[in-house]
């Protein structure tokens, strides 16, 4: 398969780009931040996303979605990255929709998937606990209790956790932290007794929450997939999410780079455009090359996720590691080359730097994924 977007995928990109650039330029995020918006995203815009079929992009057609794949999810994420639009797309339409599609019972799928596709239900994946992304180190305890379980523990960096109508909670039902066996996914009502949700205002003005679970009772019906066998489903879902976040970072990097090159051509010092200085030309050229190579690596991973999800791990590790390193370089060069203006809140460049830092931590940073690749290659 050529490492290019198909005609249909290009059309999807164009329609996503049109919608997002019209309705959610960076000023949209700035406004949500400055007004301390309660939701942290635009519900109206999410309804439009649903009407255009984006909310149900990965939901099977039998449940009212489009039944599309990783490449299409990446296409939308890349456009989100260009304007930093806060959106439930990642948590609801990618991570949660994929988990429910892959592991949900028939009843669970019919209950939740049509609502996700219709934009009526927001969901969040409650996974990380420590400072760094370590899925197998999940310690939130699921202890058997009657026919069900009792959940005890705490989650952090739950994207959209404060607005979600449904939580997908990763818990340890057996084994010790670090072990692959013994993880179970639960579908939990955020209003259930014993749950406390604290919205955490993050550096990038996007949505996240800390959630504590104090003897939260769930029944066997709330288990998503197999008890103790959650790691397999989770692995595939996280890889899809990593491909999606990597795509967002490609969009972010390219946008920040485009703005920076435009500034190099426009800003004059010593009587000429600063883009005439070779010291800056070579750095800009190097950054361009890094971004193009990362774009190829990310598309490679997305195509692999669609063609052979189980064999995509290495390609995904490469993509997320590259995207992290590239976006970090892009925003650093972006601020530096904008000089003093790059340090001002009035200029948008800083927003990109902040979002890149969060994307880097989401679902594993460049170090995590480089180490994953080393492990996969046996050294």
């Amino acid at each position, binding site marked *: 398969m050529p490492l290019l977007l198909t005609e249909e995928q290009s059309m999807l990109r164009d329609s996503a780009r049109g919608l997002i650039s019209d309705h959610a330029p960076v000023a949209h995020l700035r406004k949500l931040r400055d007004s301390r918006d309660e939701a942290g995203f635009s519900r109206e815009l999410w309804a439009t996303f649903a009407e255009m079929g984006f909310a149900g992009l990965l939901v099977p057609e039998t449940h009212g979605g489009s039944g599309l794949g990783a490449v299409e999810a990446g296409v939308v994420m890349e456009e989100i990255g260009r304007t930093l639009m806060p959106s439930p797309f990642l948590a609801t339409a990618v991570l949660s929709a994929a988990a429910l599609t892959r592991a949900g019972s028939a009843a669970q799928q019919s209950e939740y998937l049509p609502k996700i596709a219709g934009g009526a239900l927001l969901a969040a994946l409650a996974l990380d606990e420590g400072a760094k992304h370590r899925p197998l180190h999940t310690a939130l305890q699921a202890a058997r209790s009657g026919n069900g379980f009792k959940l005890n523990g705490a989650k952090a960096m739950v994207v959209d956790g404060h607005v979600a109508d449904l939580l997908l909670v990763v818990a340890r039902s057996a084994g010790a932290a670090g072990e692959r066996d013994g993880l179970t996914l639960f579908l939990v009502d955020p209003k259930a007794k014993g749950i406390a949700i604290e919205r955490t205002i993050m550096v990038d003005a996007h949505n996240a929450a800390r959630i504590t679970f104090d003897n939260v009772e769930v029944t066997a019906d709330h288990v998503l997939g197999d008890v103790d066998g959650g790691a397999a489903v989770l692995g595939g879902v996280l890889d899809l999410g990593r491909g999606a976040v990597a795509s967002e970072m490609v969009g972010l990097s390219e946008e920040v780079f485009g703005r920076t090159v435009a500034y190099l051509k426009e800003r004059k010092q010593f009587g000429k455009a600063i883009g005439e200085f070779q010291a800056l030309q070579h750095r800009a050229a190097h950054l361009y090359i890094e971004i193009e190579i990362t774009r190829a690596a990310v598309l490679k991973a997305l195509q692999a996720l669609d063609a052979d999800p189980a064999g995509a791990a290495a390609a995904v590790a490469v993509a997320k590691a590259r995207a992290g390193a590239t976006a970090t370089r892009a925003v650093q060069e972006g601020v530096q080359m904008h000089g003093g203006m790059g340090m001002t809140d009035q200029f948008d460049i800083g927003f990109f730097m902040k979002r890149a830092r969060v994307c880097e931590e989401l679902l594993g940073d460049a170090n995590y994924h480089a180490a994953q*690749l080393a492990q996969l290659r046996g050294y």
Partner: protein
Amino acid sequence: MADLDTFRRETRAWLEANCPPEMRRPMTSDEDTFWGGRNAKFSSEPQRIWFERMRDKGWTVPHWPREYGGGGLDGEQAKIVRQEMAAIGARAPITSFGISMLGPALLKYGTDEQKREHLPKITAGLIRWCQGYSEPNAGSDLASLQTRAESDGDDYIINGQKIWTSYANYADWIFCLVRTDPAAKKHDGISFILFDMTSKGVSTKPILLISGRSPFCETFFDNVRVPKANVLGTVNRGWDVAKYLLQHERAMISGMGERGGSRPLGQVAADSVGSDAQGRLDDALLRAEIATFDVDEAALAAAAERMVDLAKAEQGHPAFSSAMKYYGTELNKRRHELLMSSGGIDALEWESERSSEGARPRAWLRTKANSIEGGTSEVMLGIVAKRILDLPGA
């Protein structure tokens, strides 16, 4: 799609049946490369068998037209052949500047007669070519070259000197940039000409490099008589041909570090450094550097694949091969730094059978030229800045 699946199955089966097992092992010495040419010798029987089978199949250059000895394959099919060869670790049957550099320029600019004369001898490995571009005073500023070709009836008389001519001492023919109009602006008076290295007045002198080897020569032209019919493209428009060829050369150099089918670098490092109880390389920082290298190498491979696909779809940027040349050569230098670091003191031996006559340190030193030959990294970045980013004054 179904046709391509069938083609893939047939290709796999043919390679399985025809590629000798010895030709599926990573190359370990210079002798493992077959270059072709009038004086070519095969270093082993499997090498001969593999080359001849591929030649007869048209697969020394799968995507060239059949009439010139190519395979007549389209881009997708040629990609499948590459992928299936990589899957079994099959070596290239021949390494040839005729294939990777001159051929694309001949196909684009050659007359029918020139194509019929030269292309079949390239696909069959009969003629080995070298490239006469750089001169002592024309390196990064290549267009300032001074080797002159003066008109004399139906011929040119060529005088001057080239340098860094790869394997000129083994080559049968040269493709060469010469100044045919000294009065014109520097880019406008250059012609691209082909001639036989056995012509009277041609001499070569190998240059000893820091690797202790001599892959490059100085090449001297003393009143060399060459027919005007040997000019490729238009007289005084040789710079267009040169630039077109450089795109292919740079794409080739960017892929020089690719090691299809060989062991991961981290495992090679583990041979000398050792592993801990979890099987991790017993040097955390080296492991991290190698892992980061592996990430970048895999990403570059994807970018190389995408560059070919973009070109096929006519969406590629002609200067992008400069981007790939820059990144690929810098990456290959990193690979060899890591190999040296992994080998420790074992990688320092220069002369011994144990070290294959210092193969590792010599290869390490050789890679330092990667970011100089075919245009320095700095020139590549300048081209990207000017032609792709459109930065002012670049």
